[in-house]
Each structure stands twice: as structure tokens, then as C-alpha cells.
């Protein structure tokens, strides 16, 4: 049972970037915009965060720079889809390709350069006992991701701003006709989503593997996009979903490396579980009608008030 504690710690590391990126995408989609460029924004955030950490050694500054870089990348998407009404799906895919290429170009001088990992937020004395290590042993982005789950839930459910954002996502013409700036709200959401993706990307070099490697997010941006649907646009379900995916990804490796009780379930099954889980959840969603209607009604549609 001692092995459970390191498993949890590894699992939290695997789940945090996915959760952060998915939370950002959730807000974007709630405003009616589908941004498939999460993977690209994460990569730009990763190289920006890496470079900031490399030059300053201040991981908080690096996270900030990662957020800014992600937000700046998302503005490209915002300008094309919101100001020019370009197709959101195609633009999002293009953004991922752009982010992959741009980060590779910007990162070329940084290969073979290790950086310092971000330290845990709390003093080491709090985390000496293994059980307390599970609670206090992480660095700031982990606690930030939990805080953001709550904050986004509160914002969307309980505040006026959240109501406006949801209105824009559900019925943009109505929101427009009663005087809300659909474009303004959507721009804000897109930039927020970009910043969250940027932080998620910066977590890779700062928390997981202190180096720059091309495509180091390795498809986790796509998992984040899928998780939003998986969680039927609900922040707490998103939290559960991200940790389920993190658990499965981690357990696959621990089962393969460990043998003994952990390998009772074959690692192939662990590897297949995320996909099985996605199918099961999609089936459940379609059985429970109320959940399927949770998709924002204007998701992915360009806003063209003059038509």
C-alpha cells in the first residue's frame, strides 16, 4: 500500500496540465467558441515558460510568461474567427500546426539545456510524512488548478459575468439584442483559454521534465479538448475526468514497471481504458438526454449579426 502515495503524486503531475488546459477550453466553449488549437497554445506556452525559467530562474515569472504567450497565440485565433468570422474548426487546427512549428523554431537554441524544476509551494517540513506529502508536496500550479475548478464553477454559476458569458454561448443574437458585446465576451473567453493553455504547457518543463523537447505535450491538448465534452461542460466533472485520465495514464506505467498486485490488470487494458472510458461516457451522455443538451447552443458557430 506504500506504493499508493508515489502513485498519487505522479498522477497529480500527469493530471494537472490536462486539467488546466481543459478548464480554459471549457470557458471558451461556454462562450460559444470551439478552439481546437489547445495543443498549439500549450506548446507555445511550454517554450515561453521554458525560456523564461532558463533566463530568470523564477518559475512564477515563467508561468506568467507561459500564460501571456498562450494568450497571445489565442489572439491569432480570436482575430481570425471573431473579427473575420473564419471557420473555427479549421482555424483551431491551423493554430495547433502553427504552435507546433513556432515552438520548435523558437526552441531550437534551447536543446541540450536543462532547467531547474519548480519547487513545492509549501516548506519541506510540512511534507516529511508521506501522507502529508500527498497534500502539501506539490508546486503552485497544482493548487492553482484546484482553485480554478472552484473559481470557474462559481463564476459561471453564481456571477452576473458568468451569466452573460453563458448567454453569449447559448444564444448570441439574444445577448447581442439586449446590448451585450458578443465579440467582446468571446475575445475575453478566448484569451482566458489561451492563458490557461499556456500555463498548462509551461507545466511540462517546470513540473514534469525540466528540458525543452519539441512536441513535448505529445497530444495532451487534444485530451483536454475531449475532456470538456467528456465532462459535459461542468467544471467539477472536468476535475474528475482529468484525474481519471491521469490515473489511467499513470497506472499503465506503474503496472508495467511493478509487477505484483498492480499487474493483475494487464497494462494493455490500462492503455485502452481512456478510450473505453470516453466511449462509455459518450454512451451515458446520449442515454441521459439532459446532459447532452448541456452543450452550448452556439458552439462553433460564427456570430454574424447583420445576417
Amino acid at each position, binding site marked *: 500500500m506504500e506504493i499508493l502515495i*508515489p502513485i498519487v503524486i505522479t498522477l497529480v*503531475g500527469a493530471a494537472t496540465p490536462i486539467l488546466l488546459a481543459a478548464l480554459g477550453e471549457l470557458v471558451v466553449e461556454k462562450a460559444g467558441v470551439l478552439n481546437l488549437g489547445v495543443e498549439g497554445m500549450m506548446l507555445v506556452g511550454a517554450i515561453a515558460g521554458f525560456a523564461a525559467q532558463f533566463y530568470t530562474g523564477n518559475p512564477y515569472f515563467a508561468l506568467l510568461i507561459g500564460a501571456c504567450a498562450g494568450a497571445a497565440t489565442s489572439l491569432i485565433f480570436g482575430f481570425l474567427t471573431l473579427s473575420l468570422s473564419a471557420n473555427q474548426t479549421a482555424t483551431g487546427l491551423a493554430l495547433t500546426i502553427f504552435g507546433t512549428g513556432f515552438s520548435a523554431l523558437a526552441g531550437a537554441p534551447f536543446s*541540450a539545456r536543462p532547467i531547474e524544476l519548480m519547487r513545492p509551494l509549501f516548506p519541506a517540513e510540512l511534507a516529511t510524512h508521506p501522507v502529508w506529502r500527498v497534500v502539501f508536496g506539490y508546486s503552485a500550479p497544482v493548487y492553482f488548478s484546484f482553485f480554478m475548478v472552484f473559481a470557474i464553477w462559481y463564476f459561471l454559476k453564481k456571477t452576473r459575468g458568468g451569466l452573460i458569458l453563458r448567454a453569449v454561448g447559448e444564444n448570441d443574437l439574444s445577448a447581442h439584442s439586449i446590448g451585450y458585446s458578443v465579440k467582446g465576451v468571446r475575445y475575453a473567453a478566448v484569451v482566458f483559454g489561451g492563458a490557461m493553455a499556456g500555463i498548462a504547457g509551461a507545466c*511540462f518543463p517546470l513540473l514534469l*521534465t525540466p528540458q525543452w523537447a519539441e*512536441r*513535448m505535450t505529445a497530444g495532451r491538448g487534444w485530451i483536454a479538448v475531449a475532456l470538456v465534452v467528456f465532462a459535459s461542460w461542468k467544471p467539477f466533472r472536468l476535475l474528475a475526468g482529468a484525474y481519471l485520465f491521469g490515473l489511467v495514464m499513470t497506472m499503465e506505467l506503474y503496472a*508495467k514497471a*511493478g509487477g505484483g498486485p498492480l499487474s493483475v490488470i494487464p*497494462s494493455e487494458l490500462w492503455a485502452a481504458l481512456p478510450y473505453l472510458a470516453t466511449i462509455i461516457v459518450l454512451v451515458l451522455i446520449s442515454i441521459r438526454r439532459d446532459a447532452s443538451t448541456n452543450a452550448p447552443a452556439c458552439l462553433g458557430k460564427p456570430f454574424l449579426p447583420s445576417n
Partner: protein
Amino acid sequence: MTLSRRTILKTGAAAAALPLLGSKAFAQAEPLKIGFIYVGSINDNGYNYAHNQGRIYVEEQLGDAVETTYVENVPEGPDCERVLRELAQQGNKLIFATSFGFGDSVIKVAQQFPDVKFEHATGYQKAPNVGLYNARFYEGRAVCGVVAGHLSKTGKAGYIGSFPIPEVVMGINAFVLAARQVNPEFTIKPVYISTWNDPAKEADAARAMIDQGLDVIAQHTDGPAALQVAQERGIVGGFGQGADMSAFAPETQLTSIIDNWGPHYLASAKAVIDGTWTPGDTWEGLKEDVVQIGPYGPKVTEEVKAAAEAMRTGQIDGSVHIFTGPIKDNTGTERVAAGVTMTDAELLSMDWYVEGVEQPA
């Protein structure tokens, strides 16, 4: 030949390279165009980096007589076929496909371009214009195995692999055979992660191993992520793969296997220029300097270093072949009789693990 200014310039350039090339090159007006495709990034500090260093070496040695192009991050699959075709259409007369999974695509495209010479690394399918080249990485793995056998305190190592292909299986087996010569109780746990390049997953695999008592980690993926975790957790050590990775783990990298493809690429390029190229099937190792052992880390004592060097020089002078029987597989069945050395063909289709390898889950 009409003499334009450009031709004169080019001939002049070829003449400048004359001492390196021999007389035939003098007639060569056009530089030989050579294409390379890599499965990952040239900045991975490992496998693909090493291939690209080989390309740069050819350019340095042959100068204006060659013109090289490379395409990185080429996925193993249909996309690879497209890239190969493009390179052939662009006039590359010699194309190196540097990853195992490119094999089928190389054979297909080679049929469409019979006048283009292809060379496929670590593969097994030949054709009249497709040669094979490979490196005996397992010789380097054996040297690493000696170091691991001496230094591991738990006697258990982890081995992060990409896919269970003969290339990887052979490396694991060589590592264990060498380690068990030192410590007969030594065991290894292979973990396959189904990718060549996913640093976060490599790092998590290393964490999973260290958390479960493995204190030496070797990897056969393309980057240094696992080594960094080894350094961070302060375990006994790990090994650089493809290139010296000591920048990422100065205390923890015990040694590294360095791929040195340059001499092979140079020989092939010269053969094409001279018109003597034939589809080869080379498999070179420590002796030919295609596989090198990097500097030993600070934890490697003089005694261990001497043992590792003995393994290295033994393989160079031919007195040691790590796949010499008796070898049992991991179910206890004897696969290679005492005194018999496995043939290259047997090695290249190796799909079983030697004693000491825990069957991968």
C-alpha cells in the same frame, strides 16, 4: 557540356574538394543531392540528433560535392511515403531513411524511383536500390550492463523501451547478459511506452520504476527525460542513449552510448559519387567506431570502469560476443548451446527475452 560561368564555378569547387574525393569527382559537375528523413527532432539530443550529426559530417567532409536536405519529425506511416517521394522528385539521388518504421514506405517509393539509391537504418527489407545499414547498439548496451551490474544496489534495473521490436529486445538482452556476468541475481524490468518521443511519459515511466525499487534505468527512447528523473530522485544511475546526455544528469549518467553515423554516411555518399554503390547490408559496432561509449560518470569507480572497458575492448578485438551460449530464455529453456554464438539473422529477429528479464506486462 556548355561552359557557363556557373559550371566553371562548380567544377572549381569540385576541384577544391579533390584531395578528399579521388579523381572521379573531378568529372562531377552537379553536386550529389542527399536526403535524410528523421522520425523525431534533430534537437532531441539523442537518436535523431546523432543521425543529423552524421549528415553534417558528410557535408563537412565532402563540401560542395554534396548537397544535403533533411526532413525531421516524419511519422512512421503513409506520411513517410509522401516525404520520400518528394525528396526523390527534388533530385536527391541518395536517401537515408533513419528509422525502423520507415521500411515499408522505402520499399514502395524505391520501386517508383529505380535510379535513386535508398538506405534504410535498422530495417530488414532489401531491394536492388535499397540498402540496409545498422549499428550494433547491443555492444554498447553490454558495456552499460557491466556498469549496471556492478553499481546497482537492488540488483534490479528498469528499461524504458518504445516498442518490442528486435532492435530493442536485443538491447535489453545484451544489457542483462552483461549485468548477470557481474551479478547473477540481476534482473531487469522492461516497460514499453509505445512512442519514441513523449518526454512526460518517459519521465513518468522512470518515476514508476524508481518508486518500485529499480535503481538503475536504461532507456531506448529518443530523449533524456528519464535520466533527468533519475538525477532528481538520486538513484544509482542511468545511461545516455544516442548521444552524451551528461548535461541533463551530470552525477547520474553512468555512461552513454553514442551513435556515430558519420563514417557510414560518408562511405555511402562517396560510393554513389564514384558509381560503386551497391545495396549493402552493413552492421557495424564498436570496432568500426559506429557505436561509441561516452565518458564515464563520477559514480563509476576505477574498478568498474576497468570492467566496462574490458567488455568494450573485448568486443572490439572479437574475443567477446555477448550473445554466446549458454543462454537461457526467461522461461528457463536453453536457447543457445554453450560455446555457440548467435548469428546476425537470429539477432535481427530476436523476439524472446533472456533469463533475468521479467516478461513485460
